[in-house]
């Protein structure tokens, strides 16, 4: 057994070191800190003359000229994939046995609204279809505010949490929804659209409703649960 165990202070120094080298998320910092610490301990054991800082630099060199950046980037891809897998799973559940009734009745309601809306008398009825979108966007902004507050308090960033509250990369859906709201009237207010198209639109709108619900309500609400599954260290820290 080695005697040169690093102190709590030195461990904190390595945390600072990883942050200085652009590892922003606590989950990855923790893993790299343990790795570097193991390497440093081995070096100090083999060569007790070495200083802690020298050993740290030596260990960092082993990561190559790009340092940690490659690891950070690939970790982000991996979690992005995982995030979309969560969504896909939740989405599939809405096309499973009990929930399919909700999905189908949603398609039916949207279809009826759009159908009525294609007559002149009820031409503004399709605006109703946009209401859930507005609700989703408001909730998305609320989530973002809450997450910002939480970040201030906890000082630790978790990559998966960021994916959940950032809705994958770049708020794709929010953009999509806003675009739909802005341009929706061109799609929704076409007169004498064939019924098949109306049905198709009703179906797409429903899928987007569901996707929005999952991304904006379902996942953020269960973030804690997903995080402690993903990060056993979530509870230790």
């Amino acid at each position, binding site marked *: 057994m080695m005697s040169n*165990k*690093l*102190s709590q202070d030195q461990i904190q120094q390595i945390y600072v070191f990883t942050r200085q080298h652009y590892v922003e998320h606590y989950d990855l910092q923790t893993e*790299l800190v343990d790795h570097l610490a193991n390497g440093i301990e081995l070096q100090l054991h083999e060569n007790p003359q070495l200083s802690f800082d020298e050993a740290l630099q030596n260990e960092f060199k*082993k990561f190559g000229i790009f340092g940690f950046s*490659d690891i950070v980037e*690939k970790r982000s891809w991996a*979690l992005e994939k995982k995030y979309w897998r969560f969504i896909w799973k939740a989405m599939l559940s809405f096309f499973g046995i009990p929930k399919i009734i909700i999905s189908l009745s949603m398609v039916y309601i949207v279809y009826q609204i759009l159908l009525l809306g294609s007559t002149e008398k009820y031409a503004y009825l399709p605006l109703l279809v946009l209401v859930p979108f507005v609700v989703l966007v408001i909730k998305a902004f609320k989530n973002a505010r809450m997450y910002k507050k939480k970040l201030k308090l906890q000082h630790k960033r978790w990559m998966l949490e960021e994916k959940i509250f950032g809705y994958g990369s770049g708020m794709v859906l929010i953009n999509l929804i806003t675009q739909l709201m802005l341009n929706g009237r061109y799609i929704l207010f076409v007169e004498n659209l064939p019924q098949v198209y109306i049905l198709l639109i009703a179906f797409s709108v429903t899928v987007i409703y569901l996707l929005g619900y999952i991304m904006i309500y379902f996942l953020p609400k269960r973030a804690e649960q997903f995080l402690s599954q993903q*990060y056993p260290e979530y509870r230790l820290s």
Partner: protein
Amino acid sequence: MKSSQLYKGSLGVIILKLLEDNGRMYGYEITQKVKALSGGKLHITEGALYPALHKLEAEGMLSVEAEKVDNRIRKYYKLTDSGEVETTNRLEELDAFIQNMQQLLHPKLT
């Protein structure tokens, strides 16, 4: 790891096999184990190991555990059920590959 593309392609299998044999392991332990097992010939770089681990984990092949060890948190990886199946499959695939290559490169003239 030696720079060869051949080794890079096998990193996933190496990790899976090590975890199958040793139960749970942490990153640094894996690099040391590979060094020891290969008599120092094979060296997995840190820059390759962690992306490979994270990828396998995101694919559901590995699960993680964390424990407090010597003032710090250590993250262990171990095979999930689907990871165990995958290990067997990939090892079989690799064995077949090696056999085929051997036949191709060293044909026995009878």
